[in-house]
Each structure stands twice: as structure tokens, then as C-alpha cells.
């Protein structure tokens, strides 16, 4: 008797799951996709950024600005360290603990590199410049990290520091509504603006 009743519940369960799969698993996401493609197609497709018709990235996803050997390109603002090397198919953080020896070593090494590359004292290098983000795809740097890089970028591009600083200010977002989140500089868009303004075509 009990087994029979359980059997009835199992049949109901199978039918309920089928209904749920069709309605919630197919209709809902497909309808939402349709709605999204109508109301905000660019955002729904990943806020892609194109230059001369070809996609150079997403304004939401960070990328590396290094040469083929991995050396940072001085004419660009540099992104934060990344546990996944900005691989869009492998997001994630380092997950190293706060006392990890590996992390201590990495932080020390990055601090020295950033200071040397930008010609600033190690004490001026901010925390986000020496730590990896949670996503491994952080599109932003702190205004402090941008400030450390301004002079070096200006020298590499051969333009006045003030002009570069003005571009940085243009691409700095304050906190949303003045108090949500943290101020940040959008690196890809900033570097695109540098290219556009100061790029020496050859």
C-alpha cells in the first residue's frame, strides 16, 4: 500500500519536473533572452567594444597590455595581476590564504616590479596593484594605481602628464549613487582613448 502511494508520488514527480523543465528551463530563459535582445542588445551581448569593425574586448572584462613575452607595454595603463591571466574561459581568483607564503612572495615581487616599472617608491604602490582579483578578469584599477602609472604612460607616449591625467579623470567612475562600491578606473576604455588621442599610427 505504502509502496503504491510512493509510486503515485514518483509519477507525479516525473510529470512535475517535465512541466518545470519546459516552463522554467526553456520558455523562461528564451523569453528573457528575447526581451534582453530587444531592450538592451549591446549589454545583453557582453558590452563588446569594437575598433574599426573588429572586436577588441568587452568594456566589462579586463585584459593584459603586454607584449608577446609578457612584458608590460609602457604606453598603456596596466591591469591588476590575475590568477587566470585574463583568460575569459577560466575565470577565478588565486584562492591563496591571507598567510600563504606563496602569496607573500608574489605580493613582494609584484610590488618591486610595479615600483621599478613606474619609477615610484615601493611605498606608493597600492594594494590592488599587487593582488589578484576574484574574477581574474577585473576590468578596473583603483585611482591610486592609475596615479602611479600616469607619468610613465605620458613619457612613453611622449605627451604631457596633464593630458594623460585628464583622460584618466574622464575614465574614472565614482561610487554608484555616491556610496555604492568603490571608485575605479576603466582600463580598456582608458587605453583606447590613449590610442585614439595620442596613437602614433606607425
Amino acid at each position: 500500500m505504502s509502496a503504491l502511494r510512493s509510486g503515485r508520488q514518483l509519477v507525479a514527480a516525473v510529470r512535475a519536473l517535465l512541466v518545470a523543465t519546459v516552463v522554467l528551463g526553456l520558455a523562461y530563459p528564451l523569453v528573457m533572452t528575447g526581451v534582453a535582445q530587444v531592450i538592451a542588445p549591446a549589454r545583453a551581448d557582453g558590452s563588446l567594444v569594437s575598433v574599426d569593425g573588429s572586436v577588441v574586448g568587452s568594456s566589462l572584462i579586463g585584459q593584459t597590455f603586454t607584449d608577446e613575452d609578457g612584458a608590460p607595454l609602457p604606453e598603456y595603463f596596466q591591469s591588476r595581476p590575475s590568477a587566470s591571466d585574463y583568460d575569459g574561459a577560466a575565470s577565478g581568483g588565486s584562492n591563496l590564504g591571507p598567510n600563504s607564503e606563496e602569496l607573500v612572495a608574489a605580493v613582494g615581487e609584484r610590488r618591486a616590479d610595479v615600483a621599478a616599472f613606474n619609477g615610484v617608491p615601493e611605498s606608493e604602490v597600492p594594494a590592488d596593484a599587487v593582488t589578484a582579483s576574484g574574477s581574474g578578469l577585473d576590468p578596473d584599477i583603483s585611482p591610486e594605481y592609475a596615479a602611479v602609472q600616469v607619468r610613465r604612460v605620458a613619457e612613453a607616449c611622449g605627451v604631457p602628464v596633464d593630458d594623460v591625467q585628464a583622460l584618466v579623470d574622464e575614465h574614472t567612475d565614482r561610487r554608484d549613487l555616491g556610496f555604492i562600491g568603490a571608485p575605479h578606473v576603466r582600463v580598456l576604455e582608458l587605453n583606447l582613448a590613449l590610442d585614439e588621442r595620442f596613437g602614433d599610427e606607425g
Partner: protein
Amino acid sequence: MSAAAAGWLQAGLLVLALALVHRPLGDWMARAFTTDPAEGPKSRFWPQGHWRVERLVYRAVGVDADAEQRWPTYLRSVLAFSLVSVLFLYGLQRLQSLLPLDNGMAGVEPGSAWNTAVSFVTNTNWQGYSGESTMGHLVQMAGLAVQNFVSAAVGIAVAVALVRGFARSGTDRLGNFWVDVTRAITRVLLPLATVAAVVLVLGGVVQNLSSGTEATTLAGATQFLPGGPVASQEAIKELGTNGGGFYNANSAHPFEGPSAWVSLFQVFLLLVIPFSLPRTFGRMVGDRRQGLAIVGVMAGLATASLALTNWAQARAGGAALQLAGAATEGQEVRFGGPLSALFGTATTLTSTGAVNSMHDSYTPTGGLLVMANMMLGEVAPGGVGSGLYGMLVLAVVAVFVAGLMVGRTPEYLGKKLGRREMTLASLYVLVTPVLVLTGTAVAVTTDTGLGSLLNSGSHGLSEVLYAFTSASNNNGSAFAGLSANTPFYNTALGLAMAFGRFLPMVLVVALAGRLAAQGRAPVTAGTLPTHQPLFVGLLGAVVLVVVGLTYFPALALGPLAEALA
């Protein structure tokens, strides 16, 4: 504005939004789940009949929506639905390469598929896999996201059954599981998720069916930009306190959490139903003050935890973070410290497990706190449904403790709490600690368990302790340095998730059945009032003491040792 001031304003805005929404939403849910015409206030709005679309569902499922179930049948429905769900989700993952929209992904390995199936059906959403390299869009939509809806609905149904146990007297009927699950979806989860998904899309969360785009970066390298129906899944992932990310980095991924306000909105989504359900409870038992007392305990614990975590994260503890100058490892610049701490606190207090920053890299004290949040048993405010029934069971324990102090038979909401009721409540309280501590002990005494650790020393123990705490409490967040996609962890954590979800549910539905069968004891001068500050304090203390005494030794060896070192 200082970061700390901005942090408190964010929390203030969140509290304001929850305070505004919890009343109408709580009342709405009370109406939706008052199915017996004899219950609820006498007005033309109560109760509501079946909607036409719901009648279609009942016909398709083949159940009589007006026939109520006894508790054993209700429980069988819960378990049957969950069992079928696990099998279906397992099969779907294994076979994904043969189905459309697989995005070129291979079938998921058996161990990982089992773990993931249990994980999503139990509302845990622990992820041993990396979304963007394992799951095609079909599995994400028709497998994982479906469970995001229905596992949350099952949680709500079980909570509603327990509330009916308190609200009803002298009956052997608890309601109809299929009606409760259907209404949880048609009247609560699906409408809210639809609105939330639109907001997320406007905020920049992606929603497409593309397998991805190849970009050529400024420096000339190739970068893969993933696609996917993310916003629709993200909405229910937060709303249903599921937490399983579309991508590996979860809500820290810029396509899931593109900006700070979107991330704060996600925190609101994951808190809104758990904080509204006490209002539903108060309405259904006919005394709103009872719901207020419950939500008071939840809010008090949550506020204390948030304040402590903010304080800990702002101090950059740990050798590596001190050297860096701030706890920015595993954190996104656009979110900053306070919003990361807020998300971390909310996600571990609600059994959600989504993350916008990596808990493994929190300061030692911050990591201790997010772990302790889960150890509270996910009741402040806890997962959708599970938080309410967990807190009500602890309220039963608190009333019993008070009864012992004054030497009276304990009563809660007019229900006498005798030996059988207390046995069920006590077993409920014991299930999770047994799973957590046994699982951790096995893992750290076997080579295969220890082989997965990324960090060493006390932080290594914390990774394992966190994993079993997260799985057994159906949270799903991780100290993700642990390589959990191994046969040992897939199996052990899968079992912890299954037992951690369903054993408590069995006990809760059985308790509900016993309570509903009782009559109602009249309120006398000797009855402990359970809507006053005294009881709120007592219940808060019971939550903390039950947890503190159970987990303290394990915490002392792991995160506490690291924080004091």
C-alpha cells in the same frame, strides 16, 4: 566619503529596501499559501483560489489540487520530487554532448555529475566544476536553473507545512505539496525572477545564446569572451538563495556582477524572501508579533555579523594581506571592501553561496566569520524556506530551555512541546554538526582528503572545514583553494549535501504533522510570551550557544588559530 561611511550607507539602503518590501511580500506569500478557506483573515482577498495556469499544471502533473495530504504523504512528495530531480539532472549532464546547445562541451564525468546534481537539487549549489568550461547552455538552462527554481520552491513548501503545523489544530492534514510548490513558483519566484532578470540585463549582465566571441586585444592577443543566458539564471540564483554561478568566478565575474549597484541589488535579491517569510509566518499563525520576534532575531544576528566582518576585513590581517596593504586579494576594484564584506556576510547567512569576492583570501578573522555564519545553521535569515523552518525549530528548543528553567511544560504558539516533539527538534539540531565534523575528520585523516588542499597549516584545515560546513548547511560557497573535483570530495560532499538537506526536512515535516494533530493550549499567566524582547534575546542566545559549543573545538584548530597567530 570614506570607504567605511560608504559601506554603512550601502547597508542602510539595503535595510531600508528590505524593510519596505518584507511586509507586502510577506503578506502576499501568506495569502498565496493559505489554501484552506477556513484559515486566514475573513476578507474578500483571502483565501485565493487556483489560477487558471495553475489548474493546467495540476492537470499535467495529475494531482487533485484540492486534496490535502497527511504528513507522510507530503514528505513522500518532497522526497520523490527530489529523487527524480537528481536522476534527471545527472542524466542531462552525462548526455549533454548528444543534445543541442551543448556549446561543444563533453558529457560531465560521473563523479562530478553526481555531485552537481545533488548540489543543485539540495539548494546548495556547491560547484566542483568550472561553469564556462564544463556546462553547455542547455544544461545551465534546462538543468541547473530549473533546480534553482524548484529547490527553492521545495524549501518554501516545507516551511509552509511547518507553519501550518502551528496554525492548525486537531487535523492530520498539512496541505498539498504539489500546490505549495506550484504556487511558490507561479506566485512568488517566477514573477520576481522575471523582474529581477530585466533589471540585471539593464545593469549589464549578459543574456544571449552565443558560445562566445573571440576578441583581438589592444596588445594583439586573442581573448575569449564567453556568452550565455546569464541574467535569467542570475536572477533566480540569488532570489532562490541557490548561489551556483554561471561562470566559475560566480558573481565576481564581470558578466554576472558588472557593477557595484548590480552587486548590491543581488544582495537584496538573496535576502528578500528569507527576510519576508517571518512576516508570512506571523500572518499565517494569526499573530504578526510572532513573525516580528523571529525576524528580530535574524536581523540582530545578521547585523552583528556584518559589523564584525566589516571590521575584520578593513584591518588587513594575515602576513600577505598586510604586506599588500589591504585585503584586496580575491576582491574586485569596482566593489571595494565594504560591498565585498556585505555580499560575503549575506551569502553565508542565507545558504546562498554566491560570492562577489573569494572567501579563501579573506583576512583570518573575516574567513572565520563567514564560516561561523554558516555554522549558525543558516537561520539568520537562512535559505528560502529552510531559514524559517530552521529558526522555528530553534525557537522550539528555546521555549524548551525556558520551560526547564521555570519547571513548566513548554508551549510554543499554543502547542505543547512534549518528548516526541523535542526528540524531533533535537535530532534536527544534531544532524548538521554530525555531518560537518565527521566529514572533516575523515577528510583530514586520509591522504586522498589531504591531497586536495591548496593552503597548508591551519588554513588548510579551514579549507576542509569550510567545505563540509558549506555542503552540510546547503550553502555552496567555498574556500575555493580546495580542489574539490576529486572522487573523494565529489562523493563525500555529495552525501553531506543530501543528508544535510533531507534529514532535517524529514524531521521538520514529521514535527509539523505532530503539531497540526494537537489541540491548542489556552494562553495562561504562566505561558512564556514568545513575541517579546526577552524571548528574542533567549532565541538569539540559543542559536549562538548551540553553535558555539558544537563547533568551537574545530574552529579553534582552523580559522581561530590562524587569526590569533
